[in-house]
């Protein structure tokens, strides 16, 4: 049963097998009417290859077309001499053109990502399902709950302890590792500093605030060649490296 079927049945109370990963990937995107339509009307492909093919084909075709356009544009660049280009005065963009264009690009990217991600995330339960679940919880008399705070039924058979033991063993091994090697998890300051460029003077700053300010500056001025001063130790170390 697919997620769409779950929605149509009004919830997850019916015995239904959870969709496989491949089935999830073939789910229609909730934001794309076109895709929904295609999926509803077209017969569902049977084999894995057949299932992947239309999407893969579309992507490959789109990439091919994009490359062809890029190729044409580059050859056009070579054909036009710099002198010819210089004679062409670029029109003055209208006020807010850059902002509008950047916004449009962002919107398109967001939409495409949302569509792509929607194929890989579980759907939300239907409103009917949520209502019935809440009603069921509300109708249970206090103190008569079959489910304690742990969430496991009191009368249910005890769960296998294997995963718990596995987790406990892993935790014990980690503790032993830290105890024997005297290694603690890296502190926040170090984790943040490790993401800083080694050549930046703030890379060893005791406070993570500089790395936060640098991250903001990079976002606000993504095209500045240099945003932070050079680190003296790094520059000295670079002098030792053969050129």
């Amino acid at each position, binding site marked *: 049963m697919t997620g769409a079927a779950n929605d149509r049945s009004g919830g997850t109370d019916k015995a239904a097998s959870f969709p496989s990963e491949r089935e999830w990937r073939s789910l229609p995107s909730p934001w794309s009417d076109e895709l929904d339509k295609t999926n509803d009307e077209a017969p569902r492909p049977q084999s894995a290859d057949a299932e992947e093919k239309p999407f893969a084909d579309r992507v490959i075709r789109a990439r091919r077309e994009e490359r062809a356009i890029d190729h044409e544009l580059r050859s056009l660049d070579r054909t036009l001499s710099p002198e010819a280009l210089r004679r062409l005065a*670029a029109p003055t963009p209208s006020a807010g053109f850059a902002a509008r264009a950047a916004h449009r*690009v962002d919107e398109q990217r967001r939409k495409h990502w949302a569509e792509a991600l929607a194929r890989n995330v579980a759907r939300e339960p239907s409103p009917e399902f949520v209502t019935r679940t809440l009603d069921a919880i509300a109708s249970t008399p206090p103190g008569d709950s079959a489910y304690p705070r742990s969430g496991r039924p009191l009368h249910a058979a005890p769960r296998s302890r294997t995963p718990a033991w596995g987790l406990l063993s892993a935790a014990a091994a980690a503790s032993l590792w830290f105890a024997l090697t005297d290694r603690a998890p890296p*502190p926040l300051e170090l984790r943040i500093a490790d993401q800083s460029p080694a050549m930046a003077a703030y890379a060893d700053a005791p406070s993570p605030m500089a790395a936060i300010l640098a991250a903001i500056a990079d976002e606000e001025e993504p095209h500045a060649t240099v945003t*932070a001063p050079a680190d003296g130790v790094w520059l*000295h170390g670079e002098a030792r490296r053969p050129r």
Partner: protein
Amino acid sequence: MSEHGQGKTPRKTIVALFMASACAIALPAQQHASPVHALLQALDERFVKGDVAGYLARFAPDNDGAVAMLGRRLERQIRASRRRERATRILAGPTPIGDRALVHVRRDISLISGSGEVRRWVEDSYLVIRHDGTQATPTMSVEATSVTAPAPAERLRCGPCNYQIGGVDSFFCVPTRREEALALGAASFYLAGADVACDLHVQLAASGEPARAAALRFADALARLEPTASTGLATDWLPPAHVEVPPAGIDGARVVVELPRENAAGSGDRAAFHVVTYGGLQYVMMTRGDADALDAHRLDLDALYRSFELLDLDRGPKAAATAAIYHYLGGRFDDDRYENHRYGVTFVGPTGWEPQHCVSGAAFRARWSSRDGSRVWLTGYTPPSGHRAWTEQAADRWLLHLLQDKGLEPVEPQPADLPSTWRRDSAGDRERTIVLLDRDPDSLTAPRRRLVHLQLRADLLLILDGYGAAPSSEQAVLTAKASLRRAH
């Protein structure tokens, strides 16, 4: 016994008594100082040997982050040298602070490369120690700026930036070097004996940005660096000193970020951003540390927040910022013209573009933006720590990495009318101009072509970096470049 001898005996006694009393007076200080001297010597020896693990093993950390960052700094210094020398001397202390003692030390460091090149550093640090009987155990060490600062337990007062803070029991103040702070001014307040710290950074306030939005901007930036972070809601917050009678134009906000990833204490960390904007300046306090320790020391932190106070409450919307910029960075705008009196730099930006001061950790930085998205940045960098002067080699080394990092490559061949290799300009300064292309021709947002101009004198490296979104803007960048002057 001779007369002479008889005469000597009382004199000897007097001398002996004098020495004994002098020793008695000096003894308490020595009892503290001797173990500290021994500790400093032992740490210097470990550094010279390149034994970072042994160095850090002497510490019983109060603040794991500070000790980890010390280890990172030591490792980088050791990796960057074949041999090392270091001598540490006490500038002040040990001074009792809480149940710890604070020692202000100065370290003379020499890093010697395989070719014999020597770089000399002077590093000031605050060392927190715990006295265990006759032994001194370090619990924290934080690097500070070498610029004269008030005693660490005293109140930090900055007239140009219009604020004061500190002077609170158990907190000590460590002023931060500007290139490590990326701010007009910055200082960290550490609570002795606990994993609790508060960093204060003074920035230029973004025009019209509410404090709540600014607080969330900081929290979001932290969350991008630390993916497990969980950002709370931004709420209004004003420094307690200004709650009753808020000065006109003040705005403040607070946001808490939970960092649930397990730390050495077995719990998670927490960070809280307190943002105050006034007079064109933005005061950002980032409180950080172990979540349990922050809860346990809430009253101490409240006392620190209460100590924050704006000094002049009659400043105009941008008055504080203008004064602070002029004091710390030395620059001001007169229409398109930028003048920096401290470094003798003058530059006329492209006509009609919007000029703006920036704070970046550099000696100064200014930016011009056009409506079509073109930009010019003019930045001055003093020699990096350990370098007495800028050299062409050092500037090139840095530039090479910057270009690689940004995906830029020089145009081949470079335009004949620009000095792509180092040459002396008419004023005798060395200069170099490079036209660069973005390596990714398909990039949607990055400028395809740009110009980087370097002007070098021993005390300052000037970098003019710009691009034009249209040919006319590109020409404006070139014209502006020609106006860059530095007085002798």
